[in-house]
């Protein structure tokens, strides 16, 4: 009988780490200003304050790092939401956490200039929005400390609609310059990459993984239903609360920094589940690595495809993710209903 062994986990993760390192390398070497590889290497070794150093160390490297962290956060959050809701079509944005983050961030953007805040106010505001939303959602959707997946989903959908309306309202108040920022934020963009910002995302990603990885086996048990999981010894209520906290932290940080980058949290877990199986002990860490590599690749394309001009990375994840998702859906359909 085929069983998930630590050896298989280690090998798969090593392969995915290799993939991530490869995409990171391409991301450092590729860019619209066509630096030669020797230039890139010497910039990596020593900082001489010249344009090559600026480009490699202060533009490309922070972006690759941030893309990896945001991609990992969104993919892991996607796995966790799919497990919590027992639905492979869930993504980190379906529960309204992203709506709350968006309202926070866009409020800071559109009202902030009137109040004299700079762009620096956006990440904390977005993060606060995400956390507040999770708390409110959980309070509304839970009974006796337990949350039903359906309640959460419905509450989240309603909240997202409310958030969308609020965002449109705030956007209509905004001036021209904020309008561009709001648009970029809504579709997802990594152009604001800074090393210190990346630090926050890393912190919450680590915290999220530290919470989720030990729960991986319990997540497997949850796949057969809450009652089944309880009868196998899982404290379902506590597990749900822990995971909701972990995901809201990760999603909040990622969205606060990069805006609503779509499809990563939906595609990567789905794709990896098809390739590696649904066992969360492998799926969780694999999704972190896969999501990181995917977003690094998309962001590299976003800043390289059009020469000097920049595409928002969310446009590319959607372009890549949309058709990929349809393909996955058809494959799964065939697999499930095949004789």
């Amino acid at each position: 009988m085929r069983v998930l062994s630590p050896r298989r986990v280690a090998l798969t993760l090593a392969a995915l780490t290799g993939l991530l390192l490869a995409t990171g390398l391409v991301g450092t070497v590729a860019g619209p200003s066509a630096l030669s590889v020797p230039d890139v290497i010497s910039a990596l070794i020593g900082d001489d304050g010249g344009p090559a150093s600026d480009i490699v160390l202060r533009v490309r490297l922070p972006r690759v790092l941030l893309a990896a962290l945001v991609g990992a956060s969104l993919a892991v959050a996607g796995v966790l939401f799919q497990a919590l809701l027992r639905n492979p079509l869930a993504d980190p944005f379906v529960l309204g956490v992203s709506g709350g983050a968006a309202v926070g961030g866009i409020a800071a953007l559109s009202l902030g200039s009137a109040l004299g805040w700079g762009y620096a106010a956006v990440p904390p505001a977005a993060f606060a929005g995400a956390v507040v939303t999770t708390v409110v959602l959980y309070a509304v959707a839970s009974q006796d400390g337990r949350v039903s997946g359906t309640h959460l989903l419905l509450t989240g959908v309603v909240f997202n609609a409310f958030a969308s309306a609020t965002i449109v309202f705030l956007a209509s108040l905004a001036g021209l310059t904020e309008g561009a920022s709001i648009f970029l934020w809504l579709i997802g963009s990594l152009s604001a990459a800074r090393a210190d910002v990346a630090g926050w995302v890393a912190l919450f990603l680590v915290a999220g993984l530290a919470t989720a990885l030990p729960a991986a086996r319990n997540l497997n048990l949850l796949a057969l239903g809450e009652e089944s999981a309880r009868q196998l010894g899982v404290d379902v209520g506590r597990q749900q609360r822990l995971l909701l906290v972990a995901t809201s932290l990760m999603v909040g940080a990622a969205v606060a920094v990069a805006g609503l980058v779509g499809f990563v949290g939906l595609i990567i877990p789905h794709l990896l589940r098809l390739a590696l199986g649904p066992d969360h002990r492998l799926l969780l860490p694999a999704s972190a690595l896969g999501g990181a590599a995917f977003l690094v690749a998309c962001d590299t394309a976003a800043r390289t495809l059009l020469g000097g001009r920049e595409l928002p990375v969310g446009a590319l994840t959607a372009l890549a993710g949309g058709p990929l998702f349809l393909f996955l859906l058809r494959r799964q359909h065939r697999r499930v209903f095949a004789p």
Partner: protein
Amino acid sequence: MSSPALAFDGVGIGLGGSPVLRDVSLELAPGEIVGLAGSNGAGKTTLFRVASRVLRPDRGEVRLAGQPIATLSRRELARRLAVVPQDVAVAFPFRAGEVVLMGRSPHLSGLGFESERDVGIAQDALAALGIAHLAERSMLALSGGERQLVLVARALAQDPRVLLLDEPTSHLDLRHRTRVLERVRDFVARDGRSALVVSHDLTLSARTVDRIALLEGGTLRACGPPAEVLTADNLRVVFGVEAEILHAPDGHPLVIPRSLSPSA
């Protein structure tokens, strides 16, 4: 005298405002199989949920080998008591073998990877139910009956002292039905374990179990050897059915429903 393997002591619970169980007291002795019967909605599944601590009773308590289950940790309870539900909705394409292996979960520790012994137990459970060939099949691709067999195998892999089976044979053909009940007998025969089986097939149940408990009106109307409990009078009250009780040559009762009782 050793304490009963499983004891319901005056259990009462209401759901959604209306009472489901009023005062259920039932004891399972070690080495015993008890059949639980009653009409649909009588509270059999609810009783199982109370026993596995999915629901908390309003009154009374449940004890495992003398210990109130409320004092046990969830994992400890899961190590000692396993439930075979009527069915499961599988959200992700886990394979049958993986699901059976999940039964080992309450016994695992550390990083959470199964040992070779765990894998062996799971494989034995699959073989015992004749579904070793389904191990690599996705649960989503199995029929209702095959899923039931997988759930029974999972419970066996869980290696509990007490086994609760909620209509484990409803989708099974005669061969598999017989096989499951044989396995339950084998399970119970192993160093004094016990089982509580819900089945709507009263005749087959009567051949397998040591006692039948009839649940009606939120409480046990009768509990005893099948021949004593399966009377026309009890069947009329519990199921609203006029039935004829015949007896097989070896003494086991045969239940033959004739018609619905005129409403009282």
